[in-house]
């Protein structure tokens, strides 16, 4: 059977044009794919998936340990032994979360600046605000998944390892909204700080090194200094431990001080101060980030 190929020439596009909503969702979708290395070579996938695997592994190990304790020691043994659970996860996994945000987050903005693709976005039906909000939201989704997925694994693990899974679900279902809220708080904070840092450079490596330094160095430095300055001064100073800020909110949500923050003098401060401090660290950097991109288009 033979066929003939006809060149019908250039065809004008007569279909629908969906405007800004489509443009925003395209930037959001591309940001999500970039963060996870989708549609790119194997090397681009290594880091994000390694971090997701590491975070999931933490949730899985916590579930296995608690499950084994319950299985061999009888129901409720894990709680009696005070093994780490949902309220402790964000404290335990926070270093991995911060490094994940530091290494992967800047890629969403730095690459566009380095390759100058941002100039092509801004001549499309997008404003600077549309662009940065879409990119920020894309990475927020990735970070929220990274923060909540291990908690889901942990919850399912604890549920399945229980002799009466339905009874466990009935008594512990309130953990679900708590760990979702705590995960979202962690994601919101890490995403905003990471994006703001990335907005100042076109080199991902510079942003990543700065962020890792900021998160990793600030914690022991502030901790040591706050121990020296006892009393109220030490208490207030310990609030500047950047890794502890979202974990304090985690403690407020769960109503329990986690292992990570119990040594920080700030944990005794009133909840409203800890929560306000957290929102300050999200809102102010968020506004600076927005202002930096808003001025790209008049």
């Amino acid at each position, binding site marked *: 059977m033979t066929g003939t190929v006809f060149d019908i020439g*250039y065809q004008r596009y007569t279909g629908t044009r969906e405007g800004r909503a489509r443009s925003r*969702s395209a930037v959001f979708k591309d940001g999500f794919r970039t963060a996870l290395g989708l549609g790119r070579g194997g090397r681009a996938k290594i880091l994000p998936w390694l971090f997701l695997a590491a975070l999931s592994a933490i949730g899985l190990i916590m579930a296995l340990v608690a499950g084994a304790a319950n299985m061999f020691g009888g129901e409720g043994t894990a709680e009696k032994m005070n093994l780490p659970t949902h309220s402790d996860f964000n404290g335990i996994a926070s270093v991995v979360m911060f490094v994940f945000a530091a290494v992967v987050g800047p890629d969403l903005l730095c690459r566009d600046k380095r390759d100058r693709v941002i100039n092509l976005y801004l001549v499309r039906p997008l404003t600077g605000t549309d662009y940065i909000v879409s990119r920020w939201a894309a990475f927020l989704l990735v970070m929220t998944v990274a923060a909540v997925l291990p908690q889901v694994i942990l919850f399912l693990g604890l549920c399945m390892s229980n002799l009466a899974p339905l009874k466990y679900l009935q008594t512990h279902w309130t953990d679900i909204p708590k760990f979702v809220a705590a995960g979202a708080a962690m994601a919101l904070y890490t995403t905003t700080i990471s994006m703001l840092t990335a907005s100042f450079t076109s080199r991902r490596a510079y942003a990543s090194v700065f962020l890792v330094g900021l998160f990793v160095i600030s914690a022991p430095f502030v901790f040591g200094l706050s121990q020296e300055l006892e009393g109220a001064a030490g208490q207030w100073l310990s609030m500047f431990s950047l890794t502890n800020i979202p974990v304090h909110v985690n403690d407020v949500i769960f109503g329990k001080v986690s292992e990570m923050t119990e040594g920080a003098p700030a944990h005794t401060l009133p909840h409203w101060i800890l929560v306000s401090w957290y929102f300050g660290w999200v809102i102010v950097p968020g506004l600076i980030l927005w202002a930096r991109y808003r001025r790209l288009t008049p």
Partner: protein
Amino acid sequence: MMPASAGEALLSVEHVTKRYGKVIALDDVNFTITDGITGILGENGAGKSTIIKILLGLVKPTSGSAKILGQVASDSVLVRTRVGYMPEHDCLPSEVSAAEFLTHMAECSGLPPDAARTRAADTLRHAGLFEERYRAIGGYSTGMKQRVKLCQALVHDPAFVFLDEPTAGLDPAGREEMLTLIRKTHREFGISVLFSSHLMADVERTCDRIIVLRGGTVVHSGEVSHFMKETQTVFIEVDTNRDRLLAALQARGVAVTQEAGGLTVEGGDESVYDLVRDALVDSEAPLRRIGPRRHELTELFQRDAT
């Protein structure tokens, strides 16, 4: 929003002035552009990029108004769904395939995903990159990257496209391919073009109209054919005996001037050609070329500079 019909202004710039502090980038610029290929010429700092940025809505003019397809782009970003822009500098991601990148750019211009995918493949086919569409852009040659840049400006089927120095950095073959594509963009695709360039030859061969900017003001604008019309002079090029030919012409009372590459004789009527013929015979100068001379666009700049 429909493309403007023939003769209707696609772009209109009225009394546009743009100041950056004390520096005047554009000073009371006025022009309109209708269907076709228009070249915008000017030296560095003449205001070419500023006027393009104003028309795209990326910069607001200090005074005056610049409209594209009847709208001010900075007032309504939606007008950009019908406008394409190809920047001069590199602007392509290296790790992504051309097909994926163009699909994304089409979606960013408001096309639904399926249509975006189809348009990306079609546009790459018209630019001669169909076979290479799944390769990462980082592995493309300069000419291929330049064509991808043009494709991203066309993928959403705009009514008007801005091309900023589209032949920059290309070898002669690549430059020829790019100019052919630009002509095709208007003549076959029906998309009007504003083409900024430093290269007179490219503008002469490609554009229907030109706008010449100097120091932020429009110094010339009109049809390219008008600027390139025949002059009342005859250009003669010979292989040898040029001095003898010059003397023979002067002996016949012909006003003649020497130029690099040949002699220019004043007057374009038949009697001048007769005198030139006789002078060629007397001087035994082997004729290589003779013909009426045309203005060149470079003269516009030389004239303004002097």
